[in-house]
């Protein structure tokens, strides 16, 4: 009997995709995804660079004959997906669209600041609403996580449509164009949890509340903040409605009134969001920032569960570094037995992307400068092995980068090759390195993701990029245990280090023909790789790991 995977055609072109041939493993992977969908499972797809993830997601949705919603991490990645899916439509938040209405103060307003919905909220109207109609009509729509979570909350969209009887534009409520799609495809899933946490983060500007003469609580306790919000919300809401009534009566309100209204609205939003938090749900972090306070959940499973998964009949979660599927699904609020993991092998020859483990020194906060010198010697050793190829040292922190750079003076031949940067001149340094790689060695803590450096011949990872436990939120997550005493926070901490290591190793091999050697010299790697978090490493990384015994 023919299964659903037999419906995958010989060529992606038969599905309307702009490719003549499937890449290696693509066709059978689409089959596996469809089988998992049929079994009612959400699919976690671990697919390395070059496997064509977007095509896999689109093909699965097209074979199903339905429409799909693609979620990307950033607007930049949204655009990247559109290049692969030329027929797809995209939508971004209101702040990215100019309001076409003339402003009384001749300021350029964005749709976020505008008094929507006005009569431009219609098909062919302002760019914000027009994109919503385009997405509604398209089989494939692409959103970023932050916007998707907000827009999916909406029950529908209020727009002006022509009344069939009178021919006059009438405010109508239409269904949300993004929910109830057949397939929900989430790309870059390893970044998804933090993107979802950001969505629920409440930033409190101390300046706004000072101007409104509302004292903020001093205690860093969510319960105290909720009580504070409960106490002040009625008065603030009353003032907001008062000002709105003034605006309604006055065609040209005073500039100061508009400013007060914005402040009051911001204050009201903070209070409403605080009161929306479920005190029985995930724990929240309350902390100070230079501009005020931040209140954020430490986990995203509630958000993912309540705001994302119910909007797609089938869910496909993809990443090159998806981690341990059972842990990743827990973080994303997917219950056990409700998912299947599929791993796509790498098509890049393993000989082109070896990862050598050379245990030089265990790097941690207690490592002395004297011991860190071992890493300088190791760097010199590697630089000598690669005299003409450009290299990158993923130093994990600016402190370690600075140490390696300063102490490389021991080796005059090394000094002339080294390049490093501070947070301020990162972009310029990266451009300089890309323009004239020569045989230079870039020491950087911030190139583990987001750069495609095919020209780099070798990389050194002197320190495994464990999250910084000096950061309050990281510490809170690390110490979190379930009610049963399960140290899920520690597992996540280890997985994040593992995935950052895998991401870093992939920077220099982006195509099947490029070659790049990665050498990990932190002795912490082996315990992470073999004992504490082996399931977090994808098979295509594991097959490339070899011990180096000089």
């Amino acid at each position, binding site marked *: 009997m023919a299964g659903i995977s037999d419906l995958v055609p010989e060529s992606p072109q038969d599905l309307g995709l702009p490719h003549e041939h499937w890449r290696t493993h693509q066709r059978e992977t689409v089959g596996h995804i469809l089988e998992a969908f049929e079994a009612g499972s959400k699919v976690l797809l671990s697919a390395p660079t070059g496997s064509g993830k977007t095509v896999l997601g689109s093909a699965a949705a097209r074979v199903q004959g339905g429409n799909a919603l693609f979620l990307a991490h950033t607007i930049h990645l949204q655009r990247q997906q559109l290049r692969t899916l030329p027929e797809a439509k995209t939508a971004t938040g209101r702040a990215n669209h100019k309001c076409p209405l003339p402003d009384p103060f001749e300021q350029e307003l964005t749709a976020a600041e505008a008094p929507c919905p006005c009569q431009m909220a219609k098909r062919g109207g302002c760019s914000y609403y027009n994109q919503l109609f385009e997405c509604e009509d398209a089989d494939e729509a692409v959103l970023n996580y932050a916007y998707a979570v907000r827009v999916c909350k909406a029950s529908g969209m209020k727009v002006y449509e022509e009344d069939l009887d009178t021919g006059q534009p009438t405010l109508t409520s239409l269904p949300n164009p993004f929910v109830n799609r057949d397939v929900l495809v989430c790309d870059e899933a390893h970044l998804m949890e933090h993107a979802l946490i950001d969505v629920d983060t409440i930033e409190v500007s101390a300046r706004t509340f000072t101007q409104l003469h509302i004292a903020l609580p001093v205690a860093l306790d969510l319960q105290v903040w909720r009580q504070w919000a409960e106490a002040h919300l009625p008065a603030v809401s009353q003032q907001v409605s008062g000002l709105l009534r003034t605006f309604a009566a006055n065609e040209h309100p005073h500039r100061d009134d508009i400013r007060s209204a914005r402040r009051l609205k911001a204050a009201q939003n903070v209070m409403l969001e605080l009161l929306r938090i479920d005190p029985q749900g995930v724990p929240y972090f309350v902390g100070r920032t230079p501009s005020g306070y931040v209140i954020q959940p430490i986990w995203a499973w509630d958000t993912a569960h309540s705001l994302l998964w119910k909007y797609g009949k089938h869910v496909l979660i993809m990443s090159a570094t998806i981690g341990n599927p059972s842990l990743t699904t827990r973080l994303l609020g997917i219950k056990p037995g409700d998912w299947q993991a599929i791993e796509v092998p790498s098509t890049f020859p393993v*000989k082109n992307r070896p990862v050598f483990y050379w245990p030089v020194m265990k790097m941690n906060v207690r490592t002395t400068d004297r011991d860190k010198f071992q890493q300088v010697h190791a760097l010199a050793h590697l630089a000598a092995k690669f005299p003409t190829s450009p290299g990158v040292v993923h130093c994990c922190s600016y402190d370690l980068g600075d140490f390696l750079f300063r102490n490389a003076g021991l080796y005059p031949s090394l000094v002339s090759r080294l390049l490093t940067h501070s947070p301020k001149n990162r972009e310029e340094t990266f451009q300089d390195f890309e323009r004239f790689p020569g045989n230079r060695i870039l020491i950087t803590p911030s190139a583990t993701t987001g750069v495609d450096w095919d020209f780099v011949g070798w990389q050194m990872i002197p320190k495994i990029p464990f999250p910084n436990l000096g950061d309050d939120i990281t510490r809170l997550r690390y110490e979190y245990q*379930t009610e049963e005493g399960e140290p899920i926070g520690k597992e996540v901490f280890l997985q994040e280090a593992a995935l950052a290591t895998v991401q870093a190793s992939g920077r220099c091999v982006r195509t099947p023909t490029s070659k790049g050697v990665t050498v990990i010299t932190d002795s912490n790697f082996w315990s992470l790789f073999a004992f*504490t978090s082996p399931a977090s490493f994808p098979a295509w990384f594991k097959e490339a790991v070899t011990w180096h015994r000089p």
Partner: protein
Amino acid sequence: MVDENNPVAQVDEVPLDPSKWTEPTEEFPAKLVECRRGTTDDAHGKDGRTFTEARGLPRPSQTFRVTWERLDAVWDNEDGSTSPVKVYLALDLEKYVDGRFISLALSKGNNKPTFTLDQWKKCSGISLAPDPTVNEGGIYMVTRLRSKMFGSVAAKDISYPTAKLPDDYVYKGDVRHIKSQATSLDDAAASVEAESDTAAKAASFDEDELAGLLAGVKADDAAAMTAFISTHKEIPANIRLELVDGGPQKALVEAGKLAVSEEDGLYVLISVA
């Protein structure tokens, strides 16, 4: 559906104690191709020296050597051929302490040799005899532990049989093809450097092509040259570096392939062969 108040309640528990975490293990059918006594000098190091020479010992120490040939996997070589995947196990039978060799009490203690021999004993019908005629050539179901903790010491690559299979056993499952992997950093470095050299050799990047690309670029304008270099990454890195100092442009002008227009100061193409 997940309980919204406690979404992790129904998830399998991971033990708190790291020593209880499952270690990576493999099970596979394999042919025993070597099972004999040996010494640490049976294999040479990469530098050609024996273990005894490298460590400066008075003599090689006794070991027990076991080699399995997997039936469920083969190496894929670059030339399209395949090679058998072998799994090696060496057990130290003595150790060198304070200037003398001490035989290890294999039946005692918590260590790799004792553990491995115990596992052999558990597998009925097989005795781990250091006599090649007893077991070699037989086919077994083998368990391989990538690593195992003995107290605070981690032992690597332990393999032992769990069942004897018939001598005419034929593996009928899928044979895993393992891609051949770089085994030494030196080889990998040489491979990358070879490509880097190739790039340097491409320094003889076709002069006419370079002249063609430079035509229309403003001479004596550092900003214009920087923009040119950043957009033409097909030019090898070393030549792009030289372009900053103006060497290649000067050479092309002297060779009569480029000229600088007096009118607007742009490079003009003179002749292309």
